[in-house]
């Protein structure tokens, strides 16, 4: 039995359906990310789990018990808010101890647990400061400590790293992942940043228009996207318009323009239907000859050096953009130069809309 279950949960705001019959099982201790663009319903879903929104239909269960109607203060989970929501009239120590106070925990125990929680986020020395005297990163840690000190079964995080600068964000991503492993607490994390999701999650639920379009491990969403939307949302990808000609199991033959190609897929196709071939830029390389399947002729347009990787932007004859990563150290092509690129069939995924 999973720790948290959502069964066909729906939420409407007037005419707008924010969450459309979502069903989800969250396992104990896992780091699950709800990933999506704004308006995808991810935050609303989180808020329903927390208790700040009431589902219009469906049930939410924790440990098999129905918590759908329970107010937030009766649920055994805690939230880290997007803008931290630290109580301005209390100092750090009082903020962190608030939940324990409300639960009528003994004073000495509160003191001890608060101290330990603050040490865990390395803020022990700032215990007596008011929130306004802390930096964004420090405030974020206080919010984290304030939630964790209560030892919740589930920790809900609503885009908590959005306001931090890049370097700090990356550090915190790792820290959160470690905390999840260390404490064994289930994390449900909401973000629109796919890289963040890939970094931290055990599983990702990609949401679009109030529904989950793919749920699985990061690797799976990356290598085997279920639809064009997933392929496009996660990581960089090339999407080449293609037509399926034949299918055998997971293997497909298709045509891109009039070039024959082979690819993999996760669904069944009717021959003749159009689709998209998704190939990641890092899987494209220059071919040693023009013979063989999976070979496309492109014209180089631009080269952009970003430090970590050199991207070469090219185009097919019909104008479709194709991006590839150029190996480090090699001389990138001049604009206008013609190239033949190829990829392994296993690296090409054919997806529908």
């Amino acid at each position: 039995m999973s720790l948290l279950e959502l069964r066909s949960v729906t939420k409407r705001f007037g005419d707008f359906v924010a969450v459309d019959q979502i069903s989800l099982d969250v396992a104990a201790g896992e780091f699950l990310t709800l990933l999506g663009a704004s308006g995808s319903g991810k935050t609303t879903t989180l808020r329903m789990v927390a208790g700040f929104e009431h589902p219009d239909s469906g049930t939410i269960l924790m440990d098999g018990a129905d918590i759908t109607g329970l107010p937030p203060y009766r649920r055994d989970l805690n939230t880290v808010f997007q803008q931290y929501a630290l109580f301005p009239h209390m100092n750090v120590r009082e903020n962190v101890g608030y939940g324990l106070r409300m639960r009528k925990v003994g004073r000495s125990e509160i003191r001890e647990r608060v101290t330990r929680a603050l040490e865990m986020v390395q803020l022990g020395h700032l215990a007596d400061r008011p929130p306004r005297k802390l930096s964004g990163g420090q405030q974020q840690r206080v919010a984290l400590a304030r939630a964790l000190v209560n030892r919740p079964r589930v920790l809900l995080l609503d885009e908590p790293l959005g306001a931090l600068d890049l370097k700090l964000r990356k550090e915190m991503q790792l820290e959160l992942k470690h905390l999840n492993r260390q404490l064994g607490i289930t994390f449900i994390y909401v973000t629109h940043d796919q890289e963040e999701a890939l970094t931290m999650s055990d599983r990702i639920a990609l949401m679009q228009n109030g529904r989950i379009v793919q749920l699985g491990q990061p690797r799976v969403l990356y290598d085997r996207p279920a639809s064009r939307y997933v392929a496009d949302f996660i990581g960089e990808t090339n999407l080449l318009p293609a037509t399926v000609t034949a299918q055998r199991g997971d293997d497909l033959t298709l045509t891109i323009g009039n070039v024959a190609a082979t690819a993999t897929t996760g669904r069944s196709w009717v021959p003749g239907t159009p689709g998209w071939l998704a190939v990641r830029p890092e899987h494209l390389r220059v071919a040693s000859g023009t013979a063989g399947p999976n070979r496309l002729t492109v014209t180089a347009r631009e080269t952009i050096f970003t430090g970590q990787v050199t991207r070469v932007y090219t185009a097919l004859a019909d104008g479709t953009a194709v991006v590839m990563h150029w190996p480090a150290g090699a001389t990138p092509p001049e604009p206008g130069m013609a190239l033949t690129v190829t990829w392994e069939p296993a690296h090409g995924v054919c997806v529908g809309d």
Partner: protein
Amino acid sequence: MSVTTRRPPPDRLTPALWAAGTGVFLFIYLPLVIVILYAFHDAKIVAWPFRPFTLHWFTDLAHDRGMIDAAVASLKLAVLATLLALGVGIPGAFVLDRLDFPGKAAFERLVLLPLILPGVITGVALLTFFSFVGLSLSSGYPLVPGWPVVLGHGAALTSIVVTQVYARLRRFDRALEEASQDLYASRLSTFWNVTLPVIRPAVLGSALLVFTLSLDEIAVTFFLVGRQNTIPLQIWGLLRRGITPEVNAAATVIFAVSVAVIVVWARLMRED
């Protein structure tokens, strides 16, 4: 290559602005300064030239039975009015901020009415009300200066509390209340531990405002007061009779108290 730099055109506006602004500032302050100055005027009639310096008007004031009684009455009235205004105004602000009900717009306008209408209108309206209802203007005397005037101040000044607290509530981050509930505090507990402390400056600030406004209130009080005068009415009486610098002394005391209140209020607001 040489480049000639031209200086920016002379700014004739700014000095003119400073002159005008300072002039207006003086216009606003000089009369007050004169009143305070003449509180120390060593002569019976308030006339030019100014004769320094005496404190005996202040001692006269301290012995003026009428003034002292009026002061006590004014203080009682102010305290009661403040309590009433807070007791009704704080819930009123929350009602405006959080509830939707038919007639809400009308309620909002109604609450603001005493603030924007000339006090005379509110005063006579309350007078007709109390006389119709049969509540005597001197009822409650000597405990209170009169129930009508207490209720009248409370009613008229509730708007102050409502507007101030409502303004603060609109800036209030609801996530704080959600966080509190997330941390196991019930709604009531959340209100007490989080909401109220955060809006405290607005509450205290508006209490101070109501207190001062009540002390200085003339228009509504004029119509509702019973046997016992408040300070403004007492001064009004003195002014009708003939001016001695004792009035200036009273004015100076009032000025000092007002400034003190404003300073406290400003500090409270800055805290926010």
